């Protein structure tokens, strides 16, 4: 008998939604000591499946049919109080967002200790919490007890979450995208930790993820979900290397393959950065001086026409700051940024204006980077209009651009919220292209997108880049994406470019230790997505 088995589970959505059921006829099972990955894109119902097992389905979403049998009991028949007692004791859960999943007003020790206390285990709580903190390999457990979550990094918080979930030795751990919000090296540490603890304790892990790299890294078995249904289920090796269902195949094909592309030959230089520095000062006031954070240290690189340079690094490495310095959204403290030989930093605001339209930027968050109160047509036309193009002409151009980014011209009169993430990112791209830029700065343009949408947007970017002869500065934390898109790669660590070279060289024979560390941390790096055979 399995440890946990979900049988024919169907949960309805409120009437009038885009589909009738959040999840439909889900059947899966989890054995002790096994990691089952549930993979799917956003909205596929994978998180809902996890919530159902925990008995945390939001009110208003009725469970229509099915059973969730855990250690011989049907969880759906338990009272709310019995279910509460199981949560935390026999079923542990880790969530996606470590930054918000801990109570900001409670110390780490109290939050972990709470698990013991609410389950009536009051003996030696302190000692047990200390042992847990050691188990998840957090430094200096005694002083951590009295620390508040805001002092911890994302990875440390996720370790606290894991300690909390494993406090009472549950037999099932549900991990809902536990590493998605983390940097790649931290992600690898957390994945290893989960794997290790799971093997030591024989826990069954239900691991929810959208990332096939992660699946390749830790899964024993895989269930692929689409539109609330499981379309394919089987041993990890089989699903990853010989996917049966067309949707699984499409998903796996969409995974950036991580192989370097052919480099273009060098030509005229478009951009040259020399010794660019940026330091942020924090706090400070009438009576004291603030602290300084060096965000970019002596950055130096050049970009030739038609070339794509990737700027990779973890969060806080200064890559976005550097990009913003190039468009002068931030004013660098020193150095020079030469665009076709003109040092932009010496230009006044007015003199900078003609250059602004030649350098454009695409932002990361397709939800936050478009003004929700303006129509798409106006958003795209705004740039040209401020640079003196008549409105009618700008709108006509916006229509052409929408076609270029493969959106319907009817989009002109609609508002951003009517579009999906991928469509919004296309709008953001059209907005940047409206000014006929020579240099496009793309700041994590696909990081917020599902993998299949990500593939579409990357393909579109590549196509447009070729057609318009764009030069591109491409910022990403995802090394697979960088390898696929960029001619050359600059690796940033703590504000410094530690390695700069052709993509093939950086990936094939990295020189700097940090680059090697980053490459080692790519989840599932030994797994090469099978290229489309047919």
């Amino acid at each position: 008998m399995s440890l946990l088995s979900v049988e024919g589970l169907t949960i309805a959505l409120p009437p009038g939604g885009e589909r009738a059921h959040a999840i439909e006829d889900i059947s899966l099972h989890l054995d002790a000591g096994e990691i089952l990955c549930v993979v799917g894109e956003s909205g596929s119902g994978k998180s809902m499946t996890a919530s159902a097992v925990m008995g945390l389905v939001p009110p208003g979403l009725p469970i229509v049919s099915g059973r969730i049998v855990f250690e011989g009991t049907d969880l759906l028949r338990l009272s709310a109080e019995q279910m509460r007692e199981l949560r935390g004791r026999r079923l542990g859960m880790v969530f996606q967002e470590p930054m918000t999943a801990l109570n900001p007003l409670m110390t780490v020790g109290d939050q972990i200790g709470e698990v013991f206390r609410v389950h009536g285990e009051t003996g030696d709580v302190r000692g047990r919490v200390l042992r847990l903190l050691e188990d998840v390999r957090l430094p200096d457990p005694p002083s951590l007890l009295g620390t508040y979550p805001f002092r911890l990094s994302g990875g440390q918080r996720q370790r606290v979450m894991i300690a909390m979930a494993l406090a009472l030795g549950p037999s099932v751990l549900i991990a809902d995208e536990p590493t998605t919000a983390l940097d790649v090296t931290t992600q690898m540490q957390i994945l290893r930790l989960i794997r290790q603890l799971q093997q030591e304790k024989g826990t069954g892990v239900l691991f929810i993820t959208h990332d096939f790299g992660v699946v390749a890294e830790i899964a024993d078995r895989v269930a692929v979900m689409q539109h609330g249904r499981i379309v394919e289920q089987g041993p990890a090796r089989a699903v990853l290397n010989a996917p049966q269902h067309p949707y699984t195949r499409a998903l796996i094909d969409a995974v950036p393959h991580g192989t370097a592309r052919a480099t273009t030959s060098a030509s005229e230089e478009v951009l040259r950065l020399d010794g660019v520095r940026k330091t942020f000062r924090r706090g400070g006031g009438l009576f004291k001086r603030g602290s300084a954070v060096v965000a970019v240290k002596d950055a130096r690189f050049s970009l030739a026409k038609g070339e794509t340079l990737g700027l990779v690094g973890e969060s806080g490495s200064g890559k976005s700051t550097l990009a913003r310095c190039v468009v002068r959204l931030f004013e660098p403290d020193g150095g020079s940024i030469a665009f076709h030989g003109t040092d932009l930093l010496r230009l006044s605001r007015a003199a900078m204006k003609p250059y602004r339209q030649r350098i454009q930027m695409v932002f990361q968050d397709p939800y936050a980077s478009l003004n929700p109160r303006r129509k798409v047509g106006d958003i795209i036309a705004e740039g040209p209009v401020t640079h003196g193009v008549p409105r009618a002409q700008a709108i006509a151009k916006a229509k052409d651009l929408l076609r270029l980014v493969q959106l319907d011209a009817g989009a002109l009169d609609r508002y951003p919220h009517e579009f999906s993430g991928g469509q919004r990112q296309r709008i953001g791209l059209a907005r940047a292209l409206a000014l006929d830029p020579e240099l496009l700065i793309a700041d994590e343009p696909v990081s917020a997108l599902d993998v299949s949408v990500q593939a579409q947007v990357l393909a579109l970017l590549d196509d447009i880049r070729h057609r318009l002869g764009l030069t591109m500065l491409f910022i990403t934390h995802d090394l697979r994406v960088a390898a696929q898109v960029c001619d050359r790669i600059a690796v940033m660590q703590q504000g410094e470019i530690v390695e700069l070279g052709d993509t093939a060289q950086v990936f094939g024979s990295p020189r700097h230790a940090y680059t090697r560390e980053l490459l080692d941390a790519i989840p599932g790096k030994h797994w090469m997505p099978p290229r489309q055979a047919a």
Partner: protein
Amino acid sequence: MGAERLLRFLAQRLVKAAIVVLAIVVFQFVLIRLAPGDPASVIAGQSGAADAEFMAQLRAQFGLDRPMHEQLWIYVKGILTLDLGFSHRQQLPVATLIWDRLPATLLLTGAAFLFAISAGVALGVAAARRVGRPADSVITVIALTFYATPIFWVGLLLVLIFSVWLEWLPSFGMYTVGADLTGLAYALDVGRHLILPAITLGLFFLAIYARLARASMLEVADQDFVRTAHAKGVPEGRIIRAHVLRNALLPVITFAGIQAGQLVGGSILVETVFAWPGIGRLAFDALLQRDYAVLLGVFFCTAVMVVLFNLITDLLYAVIDPRVEVA
């Protein structure tokens, strides 16, 4: 938080506060002179038979004939030695006048404040837990009714119901005149007199706290760490108390800090309706009589309270929210 750091913080803030209060004093001094009329003209007007010579004599007596910067300098020098000046109208030092009235006002506004914040937060929490159900709507309607009704009207209604019809509570004053009570009996007597004005004054703020607490509770209840608590198997009641309420109180405290600053100045209407012998009445009368010294004294007192409560609010924040550092 180290004790040394706390002391340094306090010292810095007190220096800043002193500068702010001094600036307010100067500003108010100038502002009040811009209003037409002065104490001499009011006294002369009331005495009926005033000529220019009598007015000039009064002005000389009050020091109003000197150049304004000189008057200001004398006043600021006085403030620095905590001398708030002399009310020629009442023939008493301003400090004595204010000191006599301040306790009554603080008692009234303090009671109203505690009533508003405790009842308001309780109602807000109750509404948030029953969101969308009838109880939520009832609480919302009650809160908004008191919010929208003029404060003196609420006061008169309460007097009508509890004093005139039910004869439960006294309708005016702070204690029973002529009863000469002492000790506990006196305290109870004052307490009985306090109930109606305190509730009247508190109801308006209660509505704000109830709305604020409700919205804040609902927002926090949706946050990730509340889901984490559910996943840990924390019982519902404890989730509300230990996780939701504590986080939801932060905006309430912000507003309470603002309200607390108005404790001295905000009760003129209620003091008038209930004939409460507080500082609000003093200020109101002083304004009508152009009694500059008393008026400025009340302003000074208000300014000190606002600055003081801002400081207390900031300290309270640091106690409740570890992310806020006292520095």
